[in-house]
Each structure stands twice: as C-alpha cells, then as structure tokens.
C-alpha cells in the first residue's frame, strides 16, 4: 500500500503564528563550567534547572520530495510531565541582516500516548537521542546548554553514547511573526557570551 498523499499546506498553530528565533553555538566541555557561571550571572535569578530529555524524530515520507518532520520530546527527569510535540518550518529567507534564524514553530503538549498515535498516523521514527544539560531564562529568551548522546538500542535510554566532547548552546525566543527587535536583543545577549561561545545563525540546509 502506497503512502497516503501528504498535502503540503502551511502549518499554523491556531490563530497566532509563532516564530522561533534561534542562535546556536557550541562550547567544549572544559569551558562548560565557566559558561554556566556566566549564564547564571546574566540570566534571571531563578534556581538553575537541569533537564534530561529524550527526543524522537518522526518522519512522514510522502510521494512528494520533502518528508514531513515532527519532533517528539519527553522528560526523563519528570516522567509525569506531558510530551512535547514540535514542528519547525523552513527558515525564513528574509534580509541577510537579521541576526537570528527565524522559522515557523508549532508547539503542542501531548499525553503519553503520543508515539503510538504518531505511529498510527503513519509517521515513522527516524532517529532518537538523549539531551542532558541546563536551561536558563532571561525574560523571553531561553538558553539551553545540552549534551547530546546517541541511543544505541532503540527505546533504551539507559545506554547512551556521547556524540562529541562539546555541548550545544541554543538561544531561542518564541515570538509572534513580525517582531524584529527580538533578534536585536538576542544579538546583544550573544555579544555578552562572546569569548566563551560564539552564537550565530546556522542554516540547517547547508549542513545536511
């Protein structure tokens, strides 16, 4: 049975179209402590939160070229917390002077039957990984410092293997479409982290 046709329609999350502004960078493990200290000082004054997440990436391959990608993420440290389903669109090709990567973003909280549901819908899991690290917050900006590990046996999150000796640093803001001041704030914040980590917009198309 051939795959059902996938109609490519613009994906919107309800009434408001939320865009994700993203800056990424990486830091070696030796410098991780100093980066965490710096973030602790710069960001809002709440207790630093660690997280351990397990992310599964689902693909829906249609007849047309591009497969449809959905990311399902659950928390390993808070097993009762709901799953988080995310769709990320193509990066907007705006003017080159915009400092952050802007793409359409739809976030949905889901119950624990999400993997089964996606399987029933026709999605197939492409790959999964475990991310562990720290989350910081400054106003509407979220900084996630995470260490990615590969899951060796599918479904078993205990045995993981580290992908690299560095951690991924992501600075992201969720804002409605059309706010360009957000990227200015992000760039200013990224400037303050400058010697430790260089956050810049990385186009995912160039790296696949």
């Amino acid at each position, binding site marked *: 049975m051939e795959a059902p046709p996938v109609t490519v329609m613009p994906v919107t999350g309800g009434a408001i179209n939320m865009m994700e502004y993203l800056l990424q960078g990486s830091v070696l493990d030796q410098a991780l402590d100093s980066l965490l200290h710096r973030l602790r000082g710069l960001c809002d004054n709440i207790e630093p939160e660690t997280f351990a997440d397990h992310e599964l990436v689902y693909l829906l391959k249609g007849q047309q070229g591009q497969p449809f990608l959905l990311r399902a993420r659950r928390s390993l440290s808070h097993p009762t917390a709901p799953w988080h389903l995310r769709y990320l669109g193509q990066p907007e090709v705006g003017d080159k002077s915009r400092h952050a990567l802007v793409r359409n973003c739809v976030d949905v909280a*889901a119950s624990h039957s999400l993997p089964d549901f996606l399987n029933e819908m026709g999605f197939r899991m492409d790959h999964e990984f475990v991310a562990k690290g720290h989350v910081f917050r400054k106003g509407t900006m979220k900084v996630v410092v995470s260490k990615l590990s590969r899951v060796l046996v599918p479904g078993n999150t205990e045995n993981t293997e580290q992908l690299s000796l560095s951690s991924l640093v992501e600075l992201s803001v969720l804002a409605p479409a059309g706010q360009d001041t957000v990227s200015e704030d992000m760039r200013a914040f990224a400037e303050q982290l400058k010697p430790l980590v260089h956050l810049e917009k990385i186009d995912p198309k160039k790296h696949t």
Partner: protein
Amino acid sequence: MSGGPAVRVSIESSCEKQVQEVSLDGVETYVPPLSMSQSLARLAQRIDFNQSDESNDEEASSSETPWKQEQEEEEGVVRFQPSLWPWDSVRTALRGALTEMCVLHDVLAVVKEKKYMALDPVSQDNSSTKVPQVLQLMSKKRALAQAGGVLLRGADRLSRSVCETADRGRQRDFNSELLRLRSQWKLRKIGDKILGDLSYRSSGSLFPHHGTFEVIKNTDIDLDKKIPDDYCPLSVHIPSDLQGSAYIKVSIQRTAPDIGDLGTVNLFRRQPKSRAGAQQWHVQLEAAQNVLLCKEILSQLSREAVQLKSQIPHIVVKNHIISQPFPGLQLSISLCHSTGDKKKQRCPAENKPDDHLYVLEHNLHQLIREFHKQSLTSLAVPQPASGPLGPKRVRVAGPMALDKSSIAALHSSEGLLDKIIKQAKHIFLRSRTARTIDSLASRIEDPQIQAHWSNINDVYESSVKVLITSHGYEQICKSIQLQLNIGVEQIRVVHRDGRVITLSHQEQELQDFLLSQMSQHQVHAVQQLAKVMGWHVLSFSNHVGLGAIENIGNASAVTVTSPNGEHAISGTHTHTHTHTHTHTHTQSAMLAQGCRVLVQRVRGACVGGSGVCVGGAEVVQDQRWAQLRGGHREVNWSRMEGRNFIYKMELLMAALTPCP
C-alpha cells in the same frame, strides 16, 4: 732725582681778610676771601705752560736716541729751573713714569725681535691665585646650577609623589567604597554615570517603579580642614519618592463612626534606628528599598480591595485600607511614610495605646516576598526543555484534560488582602478567647479554670487546652478537659468524652459554654468524690429535664447514698447569671451558682439534739418501714463550712457517715 728736597705743595688761604672798606661807624667790610677754585686759578696763572710743553711733547717718540736727547733736554730744563718751582715734584714723578714706560716699550721691542731676548712661560701652580675672578665666578655658578638642578628634580619628584598619594588616598577610598557598594547592590555604568537598581524586579516583583539610584562622587572635600569621621567619598542619590522611611501599620479597632481625617493625619511615629558600623549609603539604600516594598504592598492590597468582591466592601482612602473582618470590628492597614523632614511630622497623641500588630506587618512583608517568588517560579522552565516558556498550568492543562475547576485549583487565587484579613481574624479571635478565659478565671474561684496555650501555632490556627478543676481535688476531679482549636472564624471544642462542638466567633457563646462546663464539673466531681469516699452513686444526669428552665445550659444532678444506705445526698447544680454578684469575690459570688443539696435521712431518725424531727404523726408504724429513707431536707449551703463545693460536699458526706 736731582734738585733739592721735595717741596711740599700746599694750598692755603691766608686767614686775614683784606679790608674792602671801612664804614663810617667803624665797621669793616672785608673783601670776601677767594674760594678755593679762585685761588687755584690765581696760582695756575703763574705757571708758564709754554716752557714745560716742550719736554712733554717728546715723550711720545719711541726711539732710543730721542729718548737720550730727551734726557739731556730734561736735565737742561732742570738746570734752568731752580727747585723753587712748586710743580717740580709733579714733574719729576711724571718723568719717572715716562722713563719706566719707555723702558718697558724698549724691552718689548727687543723681545719681539727675538735676537737678544726671549720670553719663557712661567709655570703655574694649582693654587695660583692668578685665575681671574670672573672665570671663578662662572665656574662656580655652573656647578651650583648643576647641583641645584639635581636637587630641584628630586624635590619635584617627591612633591609629585606626595600629591599623588594624597589624591590616590581619596581616590582609593572612592573605589573601595564603590567596590563595597557593588558587592551588595546592583550597579551598572551608563555613559559616565553610575546607576543602581534597588527594586525587587530581579526577584519577581511586578511593581512598575524603576527603582534606580545614582552614585555620586563627593568632591567637595576641603583638604585643609580636618576630614570628619563619617565622611564618605561616595554618596547615593535616591529618587525623591523613595526618600525617608516607611512602614505598614496594621491595627484592629472598634468600628469608628466615620472615616475621619484618615487621609491627612500622619501616623508616623517610629524613629528610624541607625545601625552602628553601617555605611551611610547602605542605610539610605535599605530604607529606600523598604519604602519601595511598602508601597508595593499597599498598591497590591489596594488593587485587591477594589477589585475583589466581598460581602462588606473595603474602603480605600489614599494610603489607608479599611475592612471589617467581624461586625463591630475594623481592620485598618495604612502606609506610614516619613520623608525625614522633621518639620512636617506631626506626632499624634502619644496616649493612644500602640495597637499596631507587628506580627501582621511582618507577615505582609513575607507574603509579598512569597508572591514575588511565586511569580518567578510560575514561569519556570519547561520540562521537557524544548517546551515554550509559560505558566505550567497552560502546558499541563491540555494533555491532562483538566476542566475549569481543576485549572482554577492549580492556580492559587487567594490574594494578599484575603490572606491578611484571615490572619487578622485569627489573631483577634485568639486574643478574645484568651481574654474570655482569663476573665472567667479571675471572676470565678470555684471551680478553677486553667488554660494551657500551645506554643506552636499556625497563622490560621491555634490551640489551647482548658482544664476545670477544684482546688485541692485536682487528682480526683479531672473529668472536664477541653481542647479548643481556634480557627479563623470558628472555635472547635473537643471534649474529653469525645464530643466535638463548634462555636462561632461570638464571645458570649464561648463564655456560656465554659460556664456550663464549670457547672457540670461540680457534679462530676461529686461523682468522683463519692467513689473515693465509698458512697454509692444512685443517679447521675448531665442534663436534667425537670425543673425550671435555666439561663445557661441545663442543670445537672447527682444522687449518692452513704455506704450503709442510711443517708442520701442529692445535688443539682446550675449556673445562673446574676449580675449583682459579678464584681465581688465573696461567698455570695459562689452562691450565684445555683446549687441545691438535699439530704435524705433515715425514716424515723428523729434525733432530738441536732436534727429536726421529720414529721408529726407517722402513718406507717411498722418497724420494717423504718429502714427506708424518709423525706428530704435542704441543706443551707451558704452556711456550710468549706472553701468550695467539693470540700463542702466532702464534709457533708463525712458528717453523714456514721463512725464505726
């Protein structure tokens, strides 16, 4: 020199003056004598200059032969003129000088030829004094100038370094102070100004005040005058509406008939106390931060007072909030802000008792800080980490399929004003309960009431254990023990026998209840006493259904019989409120408790001496009926000996127990 001895040339005028004329009266008019210059001129006229000029002209020649010739001519001139000539010595001296000059000239001419004479240089000593003074002066001047230059440079460097240390001393103070300030307060530099932030925004406050202060360097210090001890090179400039100090006054009063001049009276009474050792700026900044927090508290309370709908609306007047927790009672929360200007302060009358509830003020501060913390943590990071930032309940509500009531339950909706009113209610109820118990304890001596308050309370709940005992019989009669749990609006009483009674906030209810319990205690005590004394309890009732209706509670009754069954005592006890006896602590106060004790004696025991004959003619004459008890006789309880009811009862029992 030829010629005679030197003639001394002296010019003197004769003392005598020539007579010019003699007047007719014999006065001689002298010719004024010649002045010196005139006499000199007269004498000079006698000199024949022409003759001596010849010899003087020949002096100019520089050859030898004319010199010889000259000499001869001079000698000839000398022969001609005798030594009487007064200028002879002058001429001789001049001639001698000419001779010497000619000789010197000749010698120099000879030396120039270098044929007959040569000049050798003369060796010079170091200590020769022949060095000309001008050179000496120049060299000394140069040496001194060099030395002076070295010294000046050194002195210049010294003075510069001294100035620098003096400057740096003050400079270092400012910087070290700034460092200390920065270690405790948030500072940032904008342009050339140093601004600080004393608001609570970083810890979760949502108050829209900017809370920025400016750090200023004190440069108006006069170095000449002595620096005062409390001089600080750094001072802070606080926004004008945060200056001074403030506190929140919470008090409970009887409801005032009108609001009065609440908005105008300055209630500030407390003087700010300064901590020793704290820097001036620290004290000022802390006070300003406190003012900001008090303003935030009041604004939050005012907002809630206006927005929330309650049964009795709250009144908000400027800096005061008035609400009514209980009927007849008024809770007022006000912000007392003194700007530090002493002239404007009007101290209110000091004779008003300080009804400021400091506990509630402290609780208000704690509540607002909790509110801050909650607003921070409600926007906690999402788990899993890729989720959007936002309140947790929004994330959770969807997947968990929560309904509206569950969502509302997730979100605590009680505001600051509600909480503080509840706390005030509880405090008031607790204090009034204590007052009730204490007034009863002081008013009534028999039985005694004891209250044991628990030290560990909640803001909304306290508990007290009330014991009702009789003096001297604590071990025997301990049946009435009440545990009172004082809540926000109600008092819950747990009895020893397991009954749970809920009383409202009315003071009268508690009082009546305690009085009724005291009355019941007496009867319980009789029961216990009977066991100890060996008497048998025939009947016991807590609530007697017969007799007159009591004001408070019900009467309780007990009947006990003596061990040999001959006597019986019946007692009832009630509490009747008779107002006339409330002030005195005499025996009559005890009699306000209505108790009646009846004694039933053995039939036919008509003792002549002490007792009274029971009755007249007996209908039943049979002896066996004599074993039954006869009628009752009331005991004059007031004239009974004994400190309290139980004691009297014991004595009565003892009196009625026959000696073996």
